[in-house]
């Protein structure tokens, strides 16, 4: 009897632990606000520059005239080009694709999977008889940059619909985020929660709150635009695990979880990073 009660309690606990994205989000946000009491919550969309003043000044110099403006311009031109069938990207998105970044990634109930903005763009192409872009394609990143640009200032609002598949995708992203991997045995959270604000070699670790708000970003080091999944790829490689492909199910679920954590913050992509 006693044992049964304990088992029931355990089940009840694990259900609550699993099933409440909103509770997760509140705790996640509260953690950082307590950790960095001087940083206003709206600042987290600026990544490491929210918590590192010296780097911030240099970043602001870059933002004075950021190289991603070329990508936005390129994306706008591509966005306006009709497909061979006469339709265009605007036909695939609500509000003609303008100012909708904040709703991605979304859980697509028909497909039963997480659809990121990049995947949605490729699905749009395929639905209209065009071939999909490879995910590292400059054109696809430019389209994503343009769509982020038109959504600047919108509030991130990712939803986990009441559907066990959506919750499972969210939970999978959460598990990925908190699981150690690679030869260095690090979880995403080891660097970007527990050690946010600390140094790793010559780098200052950013806080995860607000992480997905500013992608795609122009990386000065590379002299090119990169997607959020390319950043995931880099982080996974940095902990010496073999990276997964961009837009793999794992990365899409990770983006889903991570973006949900940033609900309520502003979209400010595209961004500039070192």
């Amino acid at each position, binding site marked *: 009897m006693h044992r049964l009660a304990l088992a029931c309690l355990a089940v009840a606990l694990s259900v609550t*632990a699993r099933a409440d994205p909103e509770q*997760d989000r509140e*705790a*996640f946000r509260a*953690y950082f606000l307590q950790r*960095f009491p001087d940083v206003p919550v709206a600042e987290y969309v600026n990544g490491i520059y929210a*918590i*590192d003043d010296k780097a911030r000044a240099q970043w602001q110099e870059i933002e004075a005239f950021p190289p991603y403006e070329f990508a936005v311009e390129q994306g706008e031109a591509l966005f306006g080009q009709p497909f061979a069938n006469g339709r265009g990207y605007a036909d695939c998105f609500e509000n003609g694709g303008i100012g909708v970044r904040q709703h991605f990634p979304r859980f697509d109930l028909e497909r039963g999977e997480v659809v990121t903005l990049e995947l949605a763009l490729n699905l749009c192409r395929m639905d209209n008889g065009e071939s999909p872009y490879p995910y590292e394609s400059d054109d696809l990143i430019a389209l994503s940059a343009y769509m982020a640009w038109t959504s600047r200032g919108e509030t991130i609002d990712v939803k986990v619909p009441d559907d066990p598949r959506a919750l499972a995708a969210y939970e999978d992203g*959460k*598990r990925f985020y*908190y*699981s*150690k*991997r*690679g*030869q*260095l*045995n*690090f*979880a995403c*959270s*080891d660097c970007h*929660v*527990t*050690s946010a*604000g*600390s*140094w*790793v*070699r010559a780098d*200052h670790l950013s806080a995860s709150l607000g992480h997905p708000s500013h992608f795609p970003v122009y990386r000065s080091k590379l002299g090119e635009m990169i997607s959020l999944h390319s950043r995931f790829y880099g982080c996974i*490689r940095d902990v*010496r*695990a*073999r*990276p*997964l492909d961009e837009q793999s199910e*794992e990365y899409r679920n990770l983006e889903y979880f991570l973006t949900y954590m940033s609900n309520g913050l502003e979209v400010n992509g595209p961004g500039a990073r070192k």
Partner: protein
Amino acid sequence: MMVRTPWLVAVSLILAGHASVLPAQETSNQAEAAAQLSAESVAKSIGRAEAARYQAAELRVEWLETGSLIEQARKEAGLGHYEKAMALADKARQQGELAVEQYEREAEAWQQRVVR
């Protein structure tokens, strides 16, 4: 706020050390044994490494260098450097096994890190 965390580095070094089989650790006994290595035994070791790597890859938790260690092992074996090839294959196998162990450990352990 800007505190250096030597523990992060220390942990990485320990783990990196743990996972490597350094040639310098080999004793003269091992060197003797190495003389008896054959192409066949090296191929078997490489096969075991490949199997371990595959298991980790199936779970999507393969480590970064495992594949290239196996590639190097094959190359050294092809050149007749059996001792070197064996060390590389063993290191790769160990990495594959550690990655799977890590995965199994994390099946529950990740829950401890969730911000609540």
